[in-house]
């Protein structure tokens, strides 16, 4: 179906913490569904969005599904480009070692340039 010239660059921008609102989970579901369309997909975690990738989430106490393990399944869906903004991590006292998946850490300027290159940007 998808010839080379039909492939578009899709970027999903995640800026919300998990559980407090539904945005993080909705974004993840959209990414998992659209992975079937063989597009060039990247995910960006910015501001409180970086909290989505924090290790050690334990949701038993709030009786909500812990969806954080699904970020590790993204690789199997051929979604391999996960970008995290350096400034957002630092403002939250987090390092790559606190995150449950391998990510590419970019400064805000590089991230802005990457955004510019996209065909479609979806913000959550």
């Amino acid at each position: 179906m998808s010839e080379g010239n039909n492939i578009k660059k899709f970027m999903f921008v995640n800026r919300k913490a998990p559980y407090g609102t539904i945005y993080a989970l909705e974004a993840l579901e959209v990414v998992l569904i659209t992975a079937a369309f063989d597009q060039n997909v990247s995910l960006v975690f910015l501001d409180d969005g970086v909290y989505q990738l924090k290790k050690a989430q334990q949701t038993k106490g709030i009786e909500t599904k812990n969806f954080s393990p699904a970020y590790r399944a993204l690789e199997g869906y051929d979604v391999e480009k996960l970008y995290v903004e350096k400034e957002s991590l630092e403002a939250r006292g987090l390092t790559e070692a606190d995150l449950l998946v391998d990510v590419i850490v970019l400064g805000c300027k590089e991230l802005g340039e990457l955004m510019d290159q996209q065909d479609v940007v979806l913000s959550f």
Partner: protein
Amino acid sequence: MLHIINKSPLTNSSLDSCLRVAQSGDILLIEDAVYAATFGNAFEGKIREAMGRFKIYVLQPDLEARGFADRIIAGVLPVDYGGFVDLTTTNKNCQSWL
């Protein structure tokens, strides 16, 4: 008075506004506000400063859900749902900063 905050301190001004307006009392951090109860982030200084004027509580199940149970600022008091209810009854009134 009990002040209940449920928004992240780094993307929403409700905790900032609460700390500016309220002079003393209890603050309970729940949902996305629990990040404010943790150390290492850009808001930590403001919480430490506020601890002189307020008693600060955090809802433990919300902290665990977000993977931050091991980063609570010393002096911030964790409570469970029962403790949440107790705080609403021991205070004569309460405000949810939405």
